[in-house]
């Protein structure tokens, strides 16, 4: 499938693509910011980062090689350790989705289509030019998308994720895959991984995780921040410089602490507390969380691979040597992961149950992208499990296309009303 397109046509596609992309960003950002009066002030940094989402005026990337990654199974610590900078390029733009449909069948997950479109047109967050695009082979559609990316002569690299995470063979296979990945990183960036650089990287990421955990703890105590803001914060982790991101999140945490003291809460007093799970909402596709909070709900916890699942678990290393640090980092990205591509995946049910308990959730909204059969398959199991806990679940199937607004509103409103009555 050699996509033979004339140079001029490609340039034209790229131009309109980026115009659509930035229009979409402006529209969504306006929706996210203006419709909600009580956003915390320190969220302004994150809104600005999304403002310049594509322009990439970020100085911290200067002079460093960028390794693009997708999904959550790519060990960021290893990329930092070889002196490169990881940027996660899972795309949420409907504009790129339309480009991607030219390569992929209609019934494909919009995220995969959008990401392939972004890769093809080189419209990536922060206008980066990655030396390597790491594609963990989680669900089938991403595997095939990676293959197509290679045919488009993009520097794709397949990271073989085992189909299960419980057996020892899978873990040893994963350790070997990660070790080969480190060798590839070393050859691509030209630097050698050293004990010091990996230790520094682990600590850097751990500090970011510590801040996120504090952020999570604050959200648990009181509804002081909208779910959509929380998702924006974690999405910024994709492309922002990690040390600055940590600094900004700690400032946000301080402000939230002040809000808790002064009892400034968001949303209406007893608005139903929603747990969002399923296919990840990635900026600019913030349709669902924004809509929920517009209609009076409050998203208190999101079990997405674009939010908590990506940042939650921290590495503990026994002996600070490469022979123990690399397997430790590898394990951190395999063992606690609740990605539905692993079977059995009752860790995810337990994490949702814990989320429901900790955040005293009233209702669960399960978002499935049309075409993503991984989450669709798991929706029955998760749904039954949540029903057994006495919490009602709403299954939403949507994609990046903004025009199913009407249907979503009726469903969400009905669901929120039923939750309000129950409360």
């Amino acid at each position: 499938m050699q996509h033979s397109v004339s140079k001029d046509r490609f340039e034209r596609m790229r131009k309109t693509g980026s115009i659509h992309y930035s229009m979409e960003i402006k529209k969504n950002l306006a929706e996210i910011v203006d419709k909600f009066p009580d956003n915390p002030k320190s969220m302004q940094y994150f809104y600005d980062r999304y403002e310049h989402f594509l322009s990439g005026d970020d100085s911290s990337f200067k002079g460093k090689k960028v390794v693009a990654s997708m999904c959550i199974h790519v060990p960021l610590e290893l990329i930092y350790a070889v002196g490169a900078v990881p940027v996660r390029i899972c795309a949420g733009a409907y504009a790129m989705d339309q480009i991607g449909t030219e390569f992929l069948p209609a019934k494909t997950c919009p995220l995969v289509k959008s990401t392939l479109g972004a890769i093809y047109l080189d419209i990536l967050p922060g206008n980066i030019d990655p030396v390597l695009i790491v594609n963990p082979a989680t669900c089938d559609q991403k595997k095939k998308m990676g293959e197509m990316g290679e045919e488009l002569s993009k520097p794709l690299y397949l990271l073989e994720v085992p189909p299960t995470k419980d057996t020892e063979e899978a873990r040893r296979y994963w350790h070997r895959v990660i070790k080969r990945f480190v060798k590839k990183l070393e050859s691509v960036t030209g630097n050698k991984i050293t004990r010091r650089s990996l230790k520094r990287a682990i600590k850097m990421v751990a500090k970011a995780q510590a801040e996120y955990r504090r952020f999570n703890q604050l959200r648990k105590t009181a509804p002081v921040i909208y779910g959509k803001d929380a998702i924006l914060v974690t999405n910024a982790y994709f492309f922002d410089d990690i040390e600055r991101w940590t600094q900004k999140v700690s400032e946000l945490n301080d402000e939230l602490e002040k809000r808790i003291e002064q009892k400034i809460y968001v949303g209406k007093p007893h608005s139903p507390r929603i747990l969002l799970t399923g296919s990840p909402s990635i900026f600019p596709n913030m349709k669902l969380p924004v809509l929920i909070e517009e209609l009076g709900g409050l998203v208190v916890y999101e079990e997405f691979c674009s939010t908590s699942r990506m940042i939650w678990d921290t590495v503990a290393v026994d002996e600070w040597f490469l022979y123990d640090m690399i397997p430790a980092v590898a394990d951190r990205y395999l063992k606690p992961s609740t990605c539905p591509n692993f079977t059995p995946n009752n860790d995810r049910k337990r994490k949702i149950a814990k989320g429901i308990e900790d955040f005293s959730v009233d209702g669960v909204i399960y978002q499935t992208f049309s075409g993503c059969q991984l989450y669709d398959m798991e929706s029955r199991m998760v749904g039954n499990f949540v029903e057994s806990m006495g919490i009602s679940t709403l299954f939403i199937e949507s994609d990046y296309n903004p025009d199913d607004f009407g249907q979503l509103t009726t469903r969400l409103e009905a669901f929120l009303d039923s939750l309000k009555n129950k409360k």
Partner: protein
Amino acid sequence: MKYFVGIDIGSTTIKIAIINEEKELVAKGASPTGSRFNQNAVDALDLLLFRNNIKKEDIAYTVSTGYGRKLFKDSDENVNELTANAVGARAFQQDGVKIRTIINVGGQDTKVILLDENGDIKNFVMNDKCAAGTGRFLDIAARNLEVDIIDMGSLHFEAKDSPLPVNSTCAVFAESEIISLLAAGHHVNEIVSGIHYSIARRISRLAARGRIEDDVLFDGGTALNKGMVEALENELMRKIHIHPHPQFTTAIGSAHIALKKFIRVSV
């Protein structure tokens, strides 16, 4: 005497219901939505008031619902049509019947709503993406068969032997299939019952996903069609209750909500 107005602005028709303080249905009226539905809605309301000589001032509270609920200017409040439907169904209290499931086949979508003991929505499934299994499918079929939609029901019972299998559920293809069946010389009533069964099968599959429970209420415009009711009863293999004014359940529901909201506001 205070009156409460519930106005359901649907995709195809606008339905208005007026109840008085004792929750009796005083007046109901339906008129096509058309394009300027805000203006149409106001005219329909005035017409209904005039016909039942109710003065505008006696209306204490109006609640709008349905797709156009947010755009109808002079309603005091707007409510989600699923909630309105539930309240409307529960208002229809036949003795000894506890409605737990509402199947609402509207013009543009089909909704299956499950209620818990005290009438709150427990769960619901919707099909609003595809015309199959909705009122629109019947309109198209009626137009093709050059038959008036109202006597579709009676035609259904004239069919003597088993209904003709109409296998294409998609409204667009059904059109061509109906024409080919007519050309093949099949009788109109066989085709009509076949269509009823295809819609009923589609609705029952949707209902199965919602895991419906007993005492099912069938409402929405399509419920007027007796044939449809019989086909659905066979497909669901359980007794179905029909609302006395199936087309106005949601409007009545929103009127009741207007009453409840008025009492809470004034007290």
